């Protein structure tokens, strides 16, 4: 027989160089670090680690969002003031949401083209930069100090709320204009 041997493994040359399991690994790392930032070295850290690992390797149970709720609940133990921990958490929860959605749909044995992550990363940055600025501003202006004093009064809240509502309405109308008419 002149048939070839089995020396060469067949493959598809697609430039997919990142293992799909990397997304889950990053999710686990982010979840553990955020738990550490949020809870410190307490018993809740163990819960955060367990949730991070379980959410990464069984994303179909949607434990990633349970972890987000768990980390958000951890803020209740802190004063609502501006701190680097809060800004990290603000960034981290968004990152966990993006990674959890990707982990849910990317097969863990797959290989992923690096370009697949470009658009989500760009969206992440576009959302995070103004959100972080807004959070700094809001916490500086609206968060009560440890003695209970608020920099702005209730009337100011009303003004800020009205501006927020107007912005939301403007955003909604623009999105509606961009949508193509129904066929």
């Amino acid at each position: 027989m002149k048939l070839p041997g089995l020396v060469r493994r067949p493959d598809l040359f697609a430039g997919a160089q990142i293992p799909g399991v990397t997304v889950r690994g990053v999710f686990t790392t982010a979840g553990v670090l955020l738990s550490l930032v949020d809870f410190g070295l307490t018993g809740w850290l163990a819960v955060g680690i367990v949730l991070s690992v379980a959410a990464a390797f069984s994303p179909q149970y949607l434990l990633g969002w349970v972890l987000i709720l768990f980390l958000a609940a951890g803020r209740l133990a802190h004063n609502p003031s501006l701190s680097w921990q809060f800004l990290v958490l603000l960034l981290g929860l968004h990152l966990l949401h993006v990674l959890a959605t990707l982990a849910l749909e990317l097969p863990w044995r797959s290989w992923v083209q690096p370009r697949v992550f470009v658009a989500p990363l760009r969206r992440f940055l576009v959302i995070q930069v103004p959100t972080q600025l807004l959070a700094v501003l809001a916490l500086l202006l609206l968060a009560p100090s440890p003695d209970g004093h608020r920099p702005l009064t209730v009337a100011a809240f009303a003004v800020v709320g009205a501006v927020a509502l107007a912005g939301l309405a403007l955003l909604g109308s623009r999105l509606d204009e961009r949508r193509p008419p129904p066929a």
Partner: protein
Amino acid sequence: MSEPAPPPAPLPAQQPPHRSAPNSAHRSAPVTATAVPSWARSAGLTAGGTAAIVVAAAGLLLSRIDLALLALPLVVALAWTWERRPDQTEAATATLTLAELGGTEVDFTIAIAAPVGVEAIALRYTLLAGEAREIVVAGPLSGDLVGRVPLLHSGPQELVRAEYRFLGADAGALSLPQEPLVASRVVAPPRAVIGWLPLPRRLQGLTGSHESARAGDGGDFRDIHPFSAGDRLRRIDWKATARRGQNAGDLYVRRTAALADATVLIVLDSRDDVGEQVAEWNRNTPAAKGISALDVAREAASSIAAGYIQAGDRVGFQDLSSRSRMIAHAGGSRHLWRLLRAIEITQPSAVRFRHQRPPIVPPGALVYLLSSLLDDEAVRLALRWRGNGHRVIAVDVLPAARFARTTRYERIAYRIVMMEREDRIRTLQAGGVELLRWPEDGTSLPRQARLKLLSRPVRNAGSRGGRR
């Protein structure tokens, strides 16, 4: 005996509505599928929305602006994902194209035109019906995906199978898996040159290239025989007449052997197809099993058919795994192409098929039974044909075993199977069936030497073996 048309080339198993498949397996016509994908919302969107609402509500109820701020990026991200969901009315087109390199490999190209809004394409592909692999590529594809698949076996085979689904922004929207693209091909087996052609016990044809036992024209000197009515005068051997003649009227003629063609029936036992790697006998993965019994059988059948047809003989073909794959014996180059096509599309049948009666063999035909001899059916048929007076040569096509990655139990099972097979071979030989081992594995004589031995004139037989 009627001559059924050879079965058509196998097409991909699944044929979606808008699909064009190649008519001929040798052509590189692309396999194209066009369909409007069915879209679904990712569970992540629902879960993310729920989490954002819970966090924002907690911030509102507890007067915690930090909690409300934590919900803000989630809400914006979800709104963005929902806004950028793909167009659900646009059709997607995928094309799979094979390109032959002329050697032992085939290039394939996958091109997918995705609807607007698709950010990634999850592609699941299988080469040589092996293990499925998954890649995720950015979409819409700016360039085609190119791959290469080796041709490890002869016969019909599925080279590439690709399934895909689309992912929207942040994988928030996803399409259901599309119909798979399947590219199949029929690979012609290699052919060996046969130097010696064993012949039937009795040649019954009236023309051909082999010397028969009959007196006639065309062959070498046969004998000196008394003149009888019908003998040509120029055949009278005057010296023999002078030497042997008793009376004045005695005449002796020189007789020559008549030439005749042989009738050969090739019976291919395609009911099982095991490879040389014993560890793969259970899984039978084309990419890992090595050279298989059917690879050897197709090569042997093609070589035998070509050898006899080129020598002017008539050859028929019968596939044991199918009632329909039968070609009546005939000669000529066009018939050879029919035979080769029937041989190369031979594949194991999913339905186990037991012959109530053995296939009909033309009178005086030589029967080649190509089998791995792993069950009794082939032995039963061979002994039946031998009992009917045909010369039967059982061609052993089981490739030499390799034991990589085998367990101890698999090796023991292999030895048991081989012992049963040896018993069958002994039964065959005791019944007068001759054996020809086709693979050149160094355990016995070279193939040409074995064919030469089989081509020797058989005492009390009506024909001699012939050299091409």
